[in-house]
Every structure is written in C-alpha cells, then in structure tokens.
C-alpha cells in the first residue's frame, strides 16, 4: 500500500514536472477581430487596435553598410552594384540601453514592414534596435552569405552571426547593457539557430530570445506555401488572369469609394467592401508573394554560384541587360524546385550525401529540440491558425517549450503581431 502510494507520488511529480502547460489565449477574451486566417495575414490588425508608436522622425536611426564579402565586388555583375555591401539599420538611444537584434522573414529586407513595426515598438520601450535582412533576402545573399544558397539553417545562422558581430564592431562605442534577439517567421527559425550558436561563441550572451511565428518543420512550411497558388479561384478564365481579377476588384472598389486613398486601413476596408476577396483568392495572393520570393532566391543563388540552371554562367550582364527572360524562367521555380535543384545537391556534396528527411531534420526546429527545451531564456509566440504550420507542429512546440509557448487563437501568419495585446506581451517578455 505504502509502496503504491510512493509510486503514485513519484508518477504524480513526474507528470507535474512534464506538464508545464503552454499559455493558451482564450478566443473570447483575446478580442482580435479577424477570424479569417488569410484576411489576418494580408490585412493585419485594424489601425485603431494597433499600439501607438513614434513616427520615423522621432527615431534617431541611420543605415550603415558592411563589407562582408569583398570578393563579391568583382564576382557579381554590374547591375548588382547596390547589393555588393550589406545594409542594416540601427536605431540608437541616447543613453546606455539593452540592444535588440531583429531578423526579417522569408525574402524580406531589414526594412520590411513588420521589422519597421517591431523597431518602433522596442525603440519606444527604450531599446537600441538593429534591423537585419533575412538570409534568404536578395541583398543578404549577395553581400553576406558564403554559399548564397539559403535553406541550410545552420549555415544561414553562421552567416547571420558574423553579420551581428560586424554590426557590434562597427558600433563599438554604443553603450549596450544586454543583448536580446528576436525574429519573425523564417527569421524566428534563424534566431533559434543563432541563439544556439551563441552558446558556444559567446559574443553576445543573449539574455532573452523571442521567436514569433517560426516554422517548425521547414519542409511542411514551404509545401504549404507552394500549395497556396493551387487553390481554385472563381472568376479566372481564358480572358482574365488572376492579377487582372484582383486589379479589377480594386478599380471597382476605388470607383465606388470615389477617390484613391492609400493608407493603413485600405486592406481592411477593402475586405469589408462588396469587392472583398474570397479565401481562395487571398490564399492565391499570399502564395503569389511567396512565389516571387522563391523566384528571387532561385535566380540569385543560381547566378552567384554559376550553376547555369536559370542563367548561363558566362552570360554578359551590364546595367542595360534585360533580365526579363531570366525572371520568366525563375518564376517557374517554386520553393520545392529550389530545394531539389539547388539546396539538396549542394548540401549532399558538402555533407557526404544524406536524404531529404535528414536535411529536413537538420534545418528545422527539431534539430534544436533538447537545447530549446532546456533554455529558459527562449520563448515562442504562435497562432493556432498559422498557414505555415502543419498538423502536429503545435504539439511539438508544446512539448518543447512548455509554458514558454503562447498560442493565440487567431492571427494567421504574423497578422496579429501589431495587435495591442501581442505588443504588450512582446514587451513584457523582454522586460520580465
């Protein structure tokens, strides 16, 4: 009897320790108005529910460049002159303060709208803020990436880490008290790997790391994104392409409104008008932007590595050369095509073979499971209706992060980051 009690106690304590539960935000009390994940992803939060932020004029910020890969000055064609050096943006406080690095998402530059938003949010709260391009971004690939074949997250993180060290060196006189790290979407995955790298290199000793809407299984995410352009969209026929369909709707919307007014509320207002897009149309639109990112990545990687898949290796390019024929080819290549044609061959050559499954394991959050589980400084915020997740991914996050995971019921992919409730939670995490 006594023994069974003891057993029960042991079991009970085991369960208790294992079940540090994720924070699930209740939909009713959350108050986010967009219940449609695609609408949330495109339009993001309605303007009056966003936090009040300083304008750019009130921020002491400037853009700097780093010469990370001097040889690219000569190996890249003339019309890449603007991306031979890596640009980043830093906003400085006039007193000693903690510094936060922000990493952009897939294909996005340091000044993507979400990064700009996060900058304002953290700057207002008293942080120095450094905005960095994603390793999948065109400028990062040309100016800072050693292999210019993003997708192997470990390698991307090493490139990123070097950039961060160079940023620190370039601003050596800036009084920094602590270092923090955050990223959204693919940038959050990069942030996790950078944080892991920092455990051995100790350049920053990040005090806290926040991952916003990271992909869990990178392959699931790119498959989902590739699939978005396969939705059956009503209204497309032999004479009307998808873009014409959307532009016609936009034209009619402005005609009914009486004048053209481009502002923050435009998309939200548009979705509440008669001309609103259906789920399939919105999915197609999201898929389209990602396909353009995929085309940029595939073209840039092919060009820098002279693989000859999209552009012949010795094709002469000057500032007057038309790139349209190559855009036409690159457009046919989605993420899956980029992965199979460029990432996997390079990865196999450099790592003695290995299967797709092994690659996926290495480049996704799975690779860091033990580290993430044991590091109390890392937290995740995610949405239950995020399009880049697959079944079981939230389960993985729950197991790995326990109570350091916050799951919001709505928001789509990053659509609720600029909601006041989320903004408060993000600030609170770094403050605490």
């Amino acid at each position, binding site marked *: 009897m006594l023994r069974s009690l003891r057993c029960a106690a042991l079991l009970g304590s085991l369960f208790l320790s294992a079940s540090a539960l994720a924070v699930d935000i209740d939909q009713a009390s959350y108050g986010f108005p967009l219940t449609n994940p695609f609408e949330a992803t495109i339009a993001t939060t309605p303007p009056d529910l966003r936090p009040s932020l300083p304008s750019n004029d009130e921020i002491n910020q400037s853009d700097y460049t780093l010469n990370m890969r001097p040889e690219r000055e000569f190996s890249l064609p003339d019309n890449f002159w603007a991306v031979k050096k890596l640009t980043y943006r830093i906003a400085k406080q006039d007193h000693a303060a903690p510094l936060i690095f922000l990493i952009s998402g897939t294909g996005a530059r340091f000044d993507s709208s979400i990064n700009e938003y996060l900058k304002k949010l953290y700057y207002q709260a008293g942080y120095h803020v450094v905005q960095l391009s994603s390793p999948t971004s065109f400028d990062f690939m040309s100016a800072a990436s050693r292999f210019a074949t993003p997708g192997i997250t470990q390698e991307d993180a090493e490139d990123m880490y070097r950039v961060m060290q160079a940023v620190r060196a370039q601003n050596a006189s800036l009084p920094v008290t602590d270092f923090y790290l955050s990223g959204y979407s693919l940038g959050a995955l990069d942030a996790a790997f950078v944080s892991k790298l920092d455990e051995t290199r100790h350049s920053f000793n990040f005090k806290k790391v926040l991952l916003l809407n990271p992909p869990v299984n990178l392959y699931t995410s790119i498959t989902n994104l590739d699939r978005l*352009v396969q939705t*059956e969209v009503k209204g497309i026929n032999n004479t009307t392409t998808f873009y014409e369909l959307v*532009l016609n709707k936009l034209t009619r919307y402005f005609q009914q409104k009486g004048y053209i007014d481009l502002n923050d509320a435009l998309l939200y207002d548009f979705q509440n008008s008669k001309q609103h897009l259906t*789920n399939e149309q919105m999915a197609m639109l999201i898929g389209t932007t990602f396909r353009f990112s995929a085309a940029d990545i595939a073209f840039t990687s092919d060009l820098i590595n002279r693989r000859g898949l999209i552009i012949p290796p010795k094709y002469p390019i000057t500032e007057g050369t038309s790139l*349209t024929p190559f855009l036409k080819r690159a457009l046919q290549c989605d993420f899956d095509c980029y992965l199979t044609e460029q990432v996997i061959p390079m990865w196999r050559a450099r790592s003695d073979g290995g299967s797709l499954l092994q690659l996926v394991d290495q480049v996704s959050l799975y690779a860091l499971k033990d580290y993430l589980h044991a590091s109390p400084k890392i937290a995740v915020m995610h949405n*239950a209706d995020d399009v880049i997740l697959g079944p079981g991914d939230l389960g993985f996050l729950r197991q790995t992060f326990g109570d350091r995971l916050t799951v919001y019921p709505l928001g789509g992919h990053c659509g609720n980051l600029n909601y006041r409730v989320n903004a408060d939670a993000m600030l609170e995490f770094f403050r605490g």
Partner: protein
Amino acid sequence: MAKYLLLLAALMCASVANADNSKAHAPTVVGADGFKEPLSKLKFNPGLDQREFERSSLTALNVYDPLESWNRRVYHFNYRFDQWVFLPVVDGYRYVTPSFLRTGVSNFFNNLGDVPNLLNSLLQLKGHRSLETTGRLLVNTTLGVAGLWDPATSMGLPRQSEDFGQTLGFYGVPGGAYLVLPILGPSNLRDTGGLLVDYSAESQINFLNVSEVSSNHPEIWALRAVDKRYQTSFRYGQMNSPFEYEKVRYIYTESRKLQIAE
C-alpha cells in the same frame, strides 16, 4: 406520384449543383494540440498542377518597352542619384526644419498642384470632382493662408490628383512605350507628354505668382523637388529583388490604368 418524385429529385440535384462548393463555411476542426488547419478551409485544384500563377505573371511581364536597355541605364542612374544626392539632401532638409514647416511646404506646393488637378478634372468633365477641387483651392488659398495649411482635407475635401496624362488616357490614348525619365522616374510616352502640358499650363496660369518668381529664383524649384522626394515614400531597393525594374514597370503601368479608370 412518380412525376412529383422526379421533380423533387431534379430540384434536389439542382440545389446540389448550385450550392456554394467552397469550404469557407465548413466548421473549423481543432486538432488535439489546438491547431486549426487553415488550409483545410481552401478548395484546391485536385491535381495540384494548376499553372495560374505562371500564366498571370508571364502575361503581366508583357509591357511594351522597346527602349528597355536605355531605360535600365537611366533606372540605375536614378538609383545612384537617389542614394548619393537626393536622399542625403532630403535627410538634411528633415534635419534642419521642424516638422510643421515641412508640412507647410508640402501643403503649399500641393495647393499649387490643385490648379492642374482642377483643369484636368474639368477636361474630363468630372463635375463632382471639379467642384471639390475648386472648393479645396478656395478654402486652402484663403483660410489656409496661400495653401500653407490644408483645412480642406479635414473638411472632407480630400486631394484628388488628375494630370494631363490621365486626361489623355480618359479619352482613350494608349500609354505607348514605357520610359524611365532621368530623376523623375517611371513614365511612358503619353504621360511624359502630359507632364509637359501640365508644366506649361502651370507657368501660363502663374497661380499665386509662383511660376514667375521661381524663374528668377531657382531655389524655389529646388525646394519643390526636395519636397516632392520628401513626400514620395518609394525607396530604390525596397522591393529587394533582382527584378525590381520589372516590378516597378508593372506597378507603374497598372497604377496608371487604375488612376485613369477611377
């Protein structure tokens, strides 16, 4: 009896055929870990072999651009000019002037620009818009002290820009070849012509005597150019793509179509 049954069956078939077969209103199934599977709300093309993205994008790339090589060089020139001259000057301007002064300058030049806006609204026989722009001119020039303030916008008379390129487009003149103008940026044959007409109209009308004064004082032109750049949010490199030229070309062409149609 059989007839009724047949009718009923036919009706039911019809209603099935008419039913909205999208999955938008299907109840959300929440997984064991709380995942809502947003993709289950979409209706996919069963073979996943639809080429609509490719078709749309390839069609969109067909913009008439016979001077592409020249245009691309000008585009790169503009990019450099913007980075090395224009934006640093705008930053300096932002640094030395208080925000209310910059807003005043923008309002002043926008008020001047309302003159061609009015002319072109009239030429397109847009009565309502012409009235609104007239109202704007009257209110802003008097109450707004020669346009330094913009009380009209807060009175519900938003600025609605119309230029001669739009007027030509309104009467069916096609855009013609795509052109990248030095410093001014993307345009086409029609809109470049329109620009010249608007410019000469403005100097003929000589509203508030600005055109005459600025012919002796080039600094007014410089201020106007700096203000124009200050008001334009576009930054080169912002699209972050090796294909920015193509994207700007498409967006310019489509946004002009939209402005003309509206």
